């Protein structure tokens, strides 16, 4: 896209800036649209499981239900409690929403379809997702009400606990891939299973790690059965009790954007990302983004299926699972994985996966490679 703006006669730096902003807007809008559709799917699945119809009034098959809800919420009055800490109260939903969108910067939707193809992509996602706890904690504190505060405390402890085991799971994946770059991790999965299956999950050392990652991503996004932050029988509506109108909607959208992000991480790290499931030439005729979206959608269906099926955990059970089951297990698997890879000579064969620059199609927004020599010398 940078090349397109450069052809309009802009200098490289300005063309790059405009292309980046354009890409951010496109991705943000598409993520928001997917969130709206996914909320509809979620409600349909829940409806089907409990033998109801789900949303079916607004638009054909109720498809426009989320947009109607959005409009309704937009037109409502924003109520700020008088005892609330006003600035932080209003900042909290904005942080939740922004952080949920910011993580999408390093997600490759197809081969080269990524805003920022940075070589610490996975760490960036960890960093951004560790920020999302602030939206919850700030809203709980600023509401100046006891139930939101309890909820915020729960959320903070829960997210930190599960981030630890997620971190170790990611170490296993990175050991196999030899890179933190998201695209690099997907390239490394090509023909991984017996030379035909494009997925990490088929490896006996990585399959248990995927299970841990999937359950941890439920806990990290505070989805059922780990939605203790919003346990309505104990905490009213959790940290968003005092919120109304758009400030509530931002939490809601941010939460679903995070869920989609976790689904796409499952796809990218363990299920081959944009690659077709089997390394067979005709399947590559289907565009990569179709495979990516199909896999991500499959994980979202699993999320809503679990929501509809599994009862809520107790808080001590949640902590036990995180610290006493997942943490030792993932630590053991980090040791086992590195031992296995050393024993099989994986690190001697592949020092680090570096895609051939000529073979990779230009990124969505070209970063450094297309930079002219003059500009590089200057910086």
């Amino acid at each position: 896209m940078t090349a397109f703006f450069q052809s309009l006669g802009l200098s490289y730096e300005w063309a790059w800036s405009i292309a980046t902003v354009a890409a951010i807007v496109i991705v943000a809008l598409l993520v928001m649209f997917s969130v709206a559709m996914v909320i509809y799917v979620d409600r349909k699945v829940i409806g089907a499981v409990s033998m109801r119809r789900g949303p079916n009034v607004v638009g054909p098959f109720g498809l426009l239900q989320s947009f109607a809800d959005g409009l309704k919420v937009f037109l409502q009055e924003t109520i700020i409690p008088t005892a609330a800490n006003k600035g932080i109260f209003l900042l909290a939903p904005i942080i939740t929403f922004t952080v949920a969108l910011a993580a999408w910067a390093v997600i490759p939707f197809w081969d080269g379809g990524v805003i920022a193809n940075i070589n610490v992509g996975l760490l960036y996602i960890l960093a951004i997702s560790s920020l999302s706890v602030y939206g919850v904690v700030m809203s709980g504190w600023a509401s100046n009400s006891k139930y939101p505060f309890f909820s915020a405390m729960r959320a903070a402890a829960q997210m930190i606990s599960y981030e630890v085991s997620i971190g170790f799971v990611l170490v296993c994946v990175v050991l196999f891939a030899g890179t933190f770059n998201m695209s690099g991790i997907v390239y490394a999965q090509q023909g991984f299973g017996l030379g035909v299956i494009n997925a990490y999950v088929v490896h006996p050392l990585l399959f248990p790690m995927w299970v841990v990652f999937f359950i941890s991503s439920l806990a990290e996004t505070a989805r059922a059965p780990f939605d203790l932050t919003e346990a309505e029988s104990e905490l009213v509506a959790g940290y968003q009790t005092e919120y109304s109108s758009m400030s509530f909607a931002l939490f809601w959208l941010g939460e679903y954007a995070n869920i989609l992000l976790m689904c796409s991480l499952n796809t990218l790290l363990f299920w081959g990302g944009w690659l077709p499931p089997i390394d067979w030439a005709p399947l590559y005729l289907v565009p990569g983004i179709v495979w990516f979206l199909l896999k991500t959608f499959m994980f979202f269906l699993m999320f809503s299926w679990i929501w509809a099926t599994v009862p809520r955990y107790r808080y001590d059970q949640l902590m036990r699972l995180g610290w006493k089951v997942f943490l030792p297990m993932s630590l053991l698997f980090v040791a086992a994985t590195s031992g296995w890879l050393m024993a099989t000579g994986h690190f001697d064969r592949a020092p680090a996966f570096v895609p051939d620059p000529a073979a990779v199609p230009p990124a969505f927004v070209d970063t450094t490679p297309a930079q002219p020599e003059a500009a590089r010398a200057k910086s």
Partner: protein
Amino acid sequence: MIQAIAFYFFATIVVGAAVMTIMSKNPVHSVLWLIMAFFNAAGLMVLVGAEFIAMLLVIVYVGAVAVLFLFVVMMLDIDFAAMRAGFSRNAPLGLAVAAVLLAELLLAAGAYSAGGIQLGTPDGSAVQAVEVSNIEALGALLYGRYILLFEIAGIILLVAMIGAIVLTFQAPKPGARARQDVDKQTRRRPEDATVMKNPEIGQGVDL
């Protein structure tokens, strides 16, 4: 151009947030400003090309340390009036610390403007900048040349962690409620816990 704009943007916010950290009256606001400063410092790290350090700064300090900090500060029950009462008493100490820090800053600025120091290597050759990514360079140093120091640091942290656990661990007192056995709880079935009774009218149930 863009680099310069980004630098001054991040730098201004870091300095501003740092000032607000000590100026704001509410300790929770202070912690939030501190987090703001951390985050923008990470932005500065990215600008100088240390993206790995930047991400670690956010993950470790913003994502873990500052959350716990915020956690504690939010639950503190502070009497602000009592806190400010000590101001005049502690002012000389604070001024002394400030003077030392200012002197150090001036010294550092003076040393910097006098020119960089020559870093020596054991064989006397100049330090070479290499074209490898941050992660590889750091990894090669930590797990290569400094492996012993790195592992000693790891052991020390492990010992500290075990120490903290030992200090806070309380053995269950005799007579206290039995600890939970999750396997036992999940194995429990309705038949083990309930009994069906069909008493006659006016008879009551014999337990």
